[in-house]
């Protein structure tokens, strides 16, 4: 029998015992829903954990510094001391080369400098730090008051809450106000032909910035820049200010002191597992590179086991539901005994009868799978809702603890069909094996 005819006959048969088949399908749907809800909880928690880790900026960042002379020491092989090689400067050229490496999304300098803030006529000494645009996605800026910088190089500042409290009793009222920043600028000396003109001078400067936000926690800026600053400005602005940096003294000793170099660079990679390759490439370029081992790997192992157990518990309901299919189809054989005999008398082969029962089981599995996916997602959304109501009560930001990925949806439906077909094996074989003469005699 052709597939379409088989399908039409199967649907006709399913519609015939509508109540019983609907209940059986609902049983499968409940089984699939339990599986989907369980696994979506596991996957949701895993997503949440890996997302938080990724957003911490700890596992997708490489901290790069110039190689010091001591790093050229080679023990064991060759001469005890390698011929002295000048350490490569960590300058704009090196930065662009790193940016060109595969999987690198961002390379930014760690700019931190001492400042004095003038607000309402009072001076406050603190540290300022440049913040890369990618930090917007950083967990530290979740739930901030006000907003993130409106552009990459705007004259705006975000205050850390402790500093804001120092400036005002009502920190929230600071948003929108201007603050004057006093900092040390590095200026090249005028060229007069003397060797002294290779140097630079450091002069005080002032800049007025508008406060756009207040952040609770101090954002971590990657591996090397923990504890950055309490006044945050856009990184591009920090670069244009040409503030005096700790490595200016080192620049002074180089052949061309006015060619600016960075004290350190942070390289962001698009995927934590790629960090190792990028780190090796940077070391090959002649710099010291450092990163934290990707913690998400061990985390994903833990979650795989967790998901497996959730999946097993979720599947139990589906397996119970599959017994419902066996029962329904065995009952159908009894009821349709004569009909099977007629089909055989009219030329149906054992294979046709077997396939007919299989299609009926598969159709219940398919329908139950879709329905179960829908119910399972509803349960997941209910869990999310409940969790967020609880979190809101504790003044915590909303999160999503359940997630249904497309592959999960596809697997759930496939699993539902496979379980249903497996449940159909026995009834289908029994129906196919019926003796037509006996079946036709059946009243």
């Amino acid at each position, binding site marked *: 029998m052709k597939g379409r*005819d088989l399908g039409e006959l199967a649907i*006709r048969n399913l519609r015939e015992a509508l109540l019983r088949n609907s209940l059986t399908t609902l049983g499968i749907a409940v089984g699939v829903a339990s599986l989907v809800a369980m696994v979506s909880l596991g996957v949701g928690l895993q997503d949440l954990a890996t997302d938080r880790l990724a957003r911490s900026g700890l596992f997708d960042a490489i901290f790069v510094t110039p190689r010091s002379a001591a790093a050229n020491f080679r023990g064991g092989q060759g001469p005890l001391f390698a011929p002295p090689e000048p350490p490569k400067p960590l300058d704009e050229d090196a930065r662009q080369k790193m940016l060109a490496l595969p999987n690198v999304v961002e390379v930014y300098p760690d700019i931190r400098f001492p400042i004095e803030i003038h607000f309402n006529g009072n001076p406050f000494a603190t540290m300022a730090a440049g913040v890369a645009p990618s930090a917007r996605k950083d967990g530290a800026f979740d739930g901030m008051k006000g907003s993130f910088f409106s552009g990459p190089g705007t004259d705006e500042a975000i205050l850390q809450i402790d500093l804001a409290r120092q400036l005002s009793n009502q920190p929230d009222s600071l948003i929108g106000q201007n603050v004057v920043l006093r900092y040390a600028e590095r200026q090249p000396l005028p060229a007069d032909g003397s060797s002294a003109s290779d140097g630079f001078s450091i002069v005080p400067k002032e800049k007025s910035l508008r406060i756009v936000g207040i952040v609770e926690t101090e954002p971590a800026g990657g591996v090397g820049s923990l504890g950055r600053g309490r006044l945050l400005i856009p990184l591009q602005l920090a670069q244009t200010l040409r503030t005096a940096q700790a490595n200016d003294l080192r620049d002074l000793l180089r052949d061309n002191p006015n060619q600016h170099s960075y004290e350190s660079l942070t390289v962001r990679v698009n995927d934590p597992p790629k960090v190792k390759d990028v780190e090796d490439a940077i070391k090959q370029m002649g710099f010291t590179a450092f990163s934290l081992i990707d913690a998400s790997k061990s985390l994903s192992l833990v979650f795989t086991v967790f998901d497996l157990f959730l999946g097993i518990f979720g599947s139990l309901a589906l397996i119970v539901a599959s017994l419902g299919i066996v029962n329904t189809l065995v009952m159908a054989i009894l009821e349709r005994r004569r009909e099977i005999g007629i089909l*055989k008398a009219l*030329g149906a082969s054992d294979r046709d009868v077997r396939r007919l029962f299989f299609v009926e089981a598969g159709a219940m599995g398919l329908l139950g799978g879709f329905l179960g996916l829908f119910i399972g997602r509803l349960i997941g959304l209910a869990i999310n809702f409940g969790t967020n109501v609880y979190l809101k009560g504790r003044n915590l930001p909303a999160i999503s603890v359940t997630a249904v990925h497309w592959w999960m949806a596809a697997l759930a439906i496939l699993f539902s069909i496979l379980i249903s077909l497996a449940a159909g094996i026995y009834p289908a074989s029994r129906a196919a094996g019926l003796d037509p*003469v006996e079946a036709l005699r059946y009243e």
Partner: protein
Amino acid sequence: MTTGNSIAIRTDRVSRHYHMGDALVRAVDGVSLEIRAGEFIALLGSSGSGKSTLLNLMAGLDRPSSGAIFAHERNLADMTPEDLARHRSHTVGIVFQAFNLLPRMTLEENVELPLRLAEVDREERTARVREAIERVHLTARLSHRPSELSGGEQQRTAFARALVNRPSILLADEPTGNLDSATGDQIMQLLREINQTLGMTIVMVTHERPRAERFAHRLILMGDGKVISDGVPA
């Protein structure tokens, strides 16, 4: 369709024995027959004489315990279950005493069922269903379900279903058994018409001797699983 003097069905010492408790029942016991293409045969005998069992063997619904049974020189005893299904689908058409229509399907759908099983193209089906229904004069009842049809109409539907795949042999098991005498005669008239216009070989099981004598070419009387007599009606 095979006509003329070729052999449609031949049985060679065919037997069908089965156990009922400790007793061995010889339902068909060493029957040898030749049925020529285009013949209209009536298998007569009392209940338990083995006539229906012999018909089931010819239909390929049952397998012989010993001996051989040939349909167009192909031995059904050697066929695989798939081949037997093909034999039931293409070579024979079967009609039962109890009509055996599927109650949920309309007349038209019942008649179409063998075409579905034989994987006939959809475009061709409609024409063949109409042709079969016209042959049994039921065109006005296409969308009726069996419960909405009279006994005679149901049996005529069963005939249309048996004919739709254009088999060469029509096997009818007590086709008038559930019908009143007038309707029974109409059905017998239909059988004769099919035999004469289509040249189809007909083997009909019946216990109504007078009717068999009126319509069949040849009467085979069975008793205790054996052929007692075989000849033309008086």
